[in-house]
């Protein structure tokens, strides 16, 4: 392999197919033997435009039409085939290093003639990544070798997992979350498809290591809260953002709430309805508030019975050594889902601020379906400081605001083929758009392009490992019989 040319941050390498098996995302090292080396990431592999290739291809095509016998005593044909098949490998300079230390901003370049180019092994990458922490998470394989990231890389960080449908987003999310919980972390999952509820079982349906650490909360069933616990702020947010209640009505509602509090009356949803009915307010405001209170009541998420209510704080703190709370929102209608999320996020903010719970990881799948737009910035700035570390999973990258991507510490990218998605991702991510477009568009299923802090800012393509859990993320299908069974039946 030889360096052909450099343009800006790109280096083109010329090589024969036999030289090394290269895939997009692989790392190459160009070194001269003096300890310094350039770490180059492969973003594309193309054919060399050899002089005369057109006429040669035409000649080869014409030969295909006729029976051809080669009498080639020196076997030159194999050499010529090599030349014809020579590859040009497009790479990006990710770092210049000396020993185990990255030298940022160095303008050093390896010699075009003297440098030796080889594939970087996983150990070299580990030595360079240097992310603090010792809690290893085996996430899959890189170049056939196990690849580990540190659980600490998610601590205090914003993580985004995105890719098109059925590429393995939820799978990696489950690996990350279950590993974090195994290391004693507290996690909450907004599970809109009910696909995390079986994380406590292995593939055979037997309890696994997480069996005693998982709590499944189903809003309206084993997860109910009182109006009082929710508080005025949550209810106002629900009225404003979920039910689109006009400002005048919200102000009246706040006034009524304060009145009830002042009078130290009991504060249930039925009490609220009764008080609103009697309050001296405009009829239209009364109607607006009553209808919304009835809607809240019908959600069954709010209860009048304090004994029936769930304390989120207690649920989180109930297990010391790692807790995974799964909010199963599979059966909820969109409005109730939004109410539940408003409650939980608000409650978590309060509990974290008051140090009543330890810092917690929040995994939110397709968060745009239930998190209001105004909450994004709050989540990734204010609440992150209190100790809420979000992991967003989505198959619609533009559903997450661009500003959130810019603040993301770790990005796990799965395959995208849609040009618009690629454009969006490449604009928003932390590396050059050429790399994103070239690598991400070609990622096979269950292969992930990891960017950011978790990989020490050396983007890496990982083949995500299998997991011994009962996966529920599979889409239900009508035609689910195996071909062999079908044939048997037909016979």
């Amino acid at each position: 392999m030889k360096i052909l040319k450099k343009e800006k941050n790109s280096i083109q390498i010329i090589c024969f197919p036999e030289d090394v098996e290269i895939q997009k995302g692989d790392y190459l090292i160009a070194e001269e033997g003096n300890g310094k080396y350039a770490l180059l990431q492969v973003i594309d592999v193309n054919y060399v435009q050899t002089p005369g290739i057109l006429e040669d291809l035409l000649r080869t095509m014409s030969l295909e039409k006729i029976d051809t016998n080669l009498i080639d005593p020196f076997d030159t044909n194999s050499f010529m085939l090599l030349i014809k098949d020579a590859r040009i490998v497009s790479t990006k300079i990710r770092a210049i290093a000396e020993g185990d230390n990255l030298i940022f901003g160095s303008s050093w370049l390896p010699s075009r003639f003297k440098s030796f180019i080889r594939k970087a092994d996983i150990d070299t990458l580990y030595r360079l990544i240097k992310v603090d922490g010792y809690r290893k998470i085996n996430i899959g394989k890189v170049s056939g070798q196990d690849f580990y990231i540190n659980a600490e890389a998610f601590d205090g960080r914003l993580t985004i997992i995105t890719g098109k449908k059925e590429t393995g987003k939820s799978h990696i999310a489950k690996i990350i979350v279950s590993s974090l919980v195994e290391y004693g972390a507290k996690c909450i999952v907004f599970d809109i498809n009910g696909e995390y509820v079986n994380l406590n079982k292995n593939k055979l349906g037997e309890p696994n290591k997480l069996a005693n650490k998982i709590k499944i909360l189903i809003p309206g069933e084993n997860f109910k809260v009182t109006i009082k616990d929710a508080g005025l702020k949550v209810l106002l947010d629900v009225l404003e953002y979920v039910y689109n209640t006009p400002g005048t009505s919200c102000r009246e509602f706040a006034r009524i709430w304060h009145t009830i509090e002042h009078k130290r009356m009991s504060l249930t949803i039925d009490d609220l309805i009764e008080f609103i009915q009697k309050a001296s307010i405009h009829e239209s405001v009364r109607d607006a508030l009553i209808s919304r209170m009835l809607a809240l009541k019908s959600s069954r998420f709010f209860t009048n019975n304090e004994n029936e209510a769930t304390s989120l704080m207690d649920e989180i703190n109930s297990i010391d050594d790692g807790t995974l709370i799964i909010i199963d929102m599979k059966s909820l209608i969109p409005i109730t889902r939004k109410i539940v999320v408003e409650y939980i996020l608000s409650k978590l903010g309060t509990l974290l601020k008051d140090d009543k719970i330890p810092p917690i990881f929040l995994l939110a799948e397709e968060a745009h379906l239930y998190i209001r737009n105004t909450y994004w910035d709050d989540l990734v700035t204010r609440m992150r400081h209190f100790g809420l570390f979000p992991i967003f999973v989505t198959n619609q990258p533009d559903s997450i605001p661009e500003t959130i991507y810019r603040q993301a510490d770790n990005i796990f990218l799965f395959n995208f083929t849609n040009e618009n998605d690629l454009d969006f991702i490449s604009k928003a991510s932390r590396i050059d758009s050429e790399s994103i477009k070239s690598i991400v568009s070609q990622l096979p299923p269950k292969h992930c392009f990891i960017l950011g802090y978790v990989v020490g800012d050396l983007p890496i393509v990982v083949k995500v490992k299998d997991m011994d859990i009962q996966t529920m993320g599979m889409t239900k299908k009508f035609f689910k019989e195996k071909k062999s069974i079908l044939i048997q039946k037909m016979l």
Partner: protein
Amino acid sequence: MQNIQQNSISLNKPSLHLDIASSTYLKAFSNLGLISLNKINNDEYFFPVLDKNINDDDHIEDILIIDFKQGEPISFSIKPIEIKKPIIAIDTSSIKIAENSEGFIIAIRGAIIHRFLNKASAYLIGPFPFYICEENSYLIYNRLRNIFFGLKENVNPPLLEHIPKRIGNLFDRWLQIYVAEKFSDSILLFDGSLTAGTIDSPISIMKKIIEIAQKNNNIIMAFSKMTRLRIHGVRITEIQSKESYPYVINIDNCLKQMKYKCFGNIYVARLSPFPYSYRLDIAPFSKDKHIESLGILLNNDAIIYGYPETLLLAHVLSTFNKIDVIGFQRLLASEFNFPIYENEDIRETLFQPF
């Protein structure tokens, strides 16, 4: 490596089976090339050469002298004749691959194309490398004459710069003998002319080719794309006939004096509506048979710009392209350990900064 191996790159069973790979002549040719390479001192650097192929048919035919008008050219209209006959075309090519201070390495390749009943088969023979320098040119050239034609008397070799072309010609003539022997009742298409009398086309050899062809009832048609033959200052390929194409014009009557002997009859052939004419030498047999054979050729081969497609294919397949040359240079470096370095352009070195 030294053993000639035959690799079939087609999965289909070829319709043509030739024993050329086991020919002792070819083995001797290959071995001589190998011996010439073994003489190279590996300490000496080679510089790669990207030269032009030498397979043009502009060799000795142009030395033919045509004087003033002796007689009129005679035109013959050609009509396709529906007789099925195999068409066999041969061409060879040689090229300089690398050079050092003493000489250069050349590569030679030949192609035999067989076409019958719309099915074509090809034999690509070579490439064969030779290292030629002043010291060994005498030996190699005379040894090749001896191998291919059994010629015992030694001659002075051509100038070193002409050696690639001359060795290519020897190989070409040998292939012509080979196909003349192996095929019968066929039309043999050669690139060039049937002129003889030079050191690499001795009269005895050309005569032998014609005799073998005649014995096997083959007819030879040699097409020259380039010619300097003129009648009254007009290039013969510019002569027009009143006949509608396809036609040939026999110019034997116009010839007065010949420095070299030409076997067969000389025609100007225009076989397609395109305004391209070629010098065409046909032998053996009579002119009537020639005209009939041209009719059979039209029926059995495609004519591309007035040139037989089978011969065109032989030319294309024997010609070295840049990739062939680069691949061969790599072979020399890796298999023979010849140090090949890029030759720096002295003009560029001197003047580039300015």
